[in-house]
């Protein structure tokens, strides 16, 4: 299954709805290009909705980390929304659960950006 990404803006936050697999190859590239485009357009508040992401491998995890650091280095913030149990477990095993700001619902996530 290929990965899809679509973006929408809510209260100044760019929400990227991701679906499918974030793995080495196409999935990782889609995520990288999407975040890069948003950063280039000047967006500083990016929320990745992973609710429909069915699978992430180590390359996908690396891509999430890369997105996080590139947005942060550009003076922005990147948060994660709606982790599935599998993705949650992976981030916990890799100790990245404490690195990312992880949100469970969209309204709270948007509020967290605008605090």
């Amino acid at each position, binding site marked *: 299954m290929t990965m899809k990404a679509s973006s929408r803006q809510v209260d100044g936050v760019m929400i990227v709805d991701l679906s499918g697999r974030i*793995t*080495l*190859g196409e999935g990782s590239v889609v995520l990288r290009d999407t975040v890069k485009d948003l950063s280039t357009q000047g967006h500083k508040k990016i929320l990745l909705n992973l609710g429909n992401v069915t699978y992430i*491998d*180590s*390359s996908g*995890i*690396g*891509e999430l*980390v*890369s997105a*996080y*650091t590139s947005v942060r280095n550009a003076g922005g913030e990147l948060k994660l929304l709606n982790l599935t149990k*599998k993705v949650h477990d*992976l981030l916990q*095993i*890799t*100790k*990245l659960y404490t*690195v990312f700001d992880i949100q469970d619902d969209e309204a709270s996530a948007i509020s967290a950006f605008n605090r």
Partner: protein
Amino acid sequence: MNATRVSYTLESTLASVNKAEQAATEAAAKSGFDEDECGRIAMAVREAAVNAVLHGNRYDPNKRVTVCFQTTPDALTVAVRDEGQGLDPATVPDPLAPENLLKQSGRGIFLIRAFMDEISFRSLSPGTEITMIKFVRGPGRDGNKEANQ
């Protein structure tokens, strides 16, 4: 003891990584692992295949990746072999170390160790073989695994 052995010789491509993952899912299911365990085993095999294709064979069309599944009533054993320059697992940095936490790569072998019960590396000439074992759950083994955590 009954043992079933299936072997795949694959090209050094991303399609082969997906093939190895799919074959692992099927082999794990046949071994009787539940859905979550099948997913973890498949991810471990996928990571090993990625290492073989990407870091071992470096997508070289003249080099092959071999993935071998051996199923016994006690365990599923998977060996992934490449024809690359070789790998010293001792030199792989700890991805949980604070200085490595935000690195983009370097988590593959860590995940394999996390998801499989035993792993070992063997140097070939040329190449590397990683062997991963997942034991079919039994009362004694569950106890041992918990004791080791």
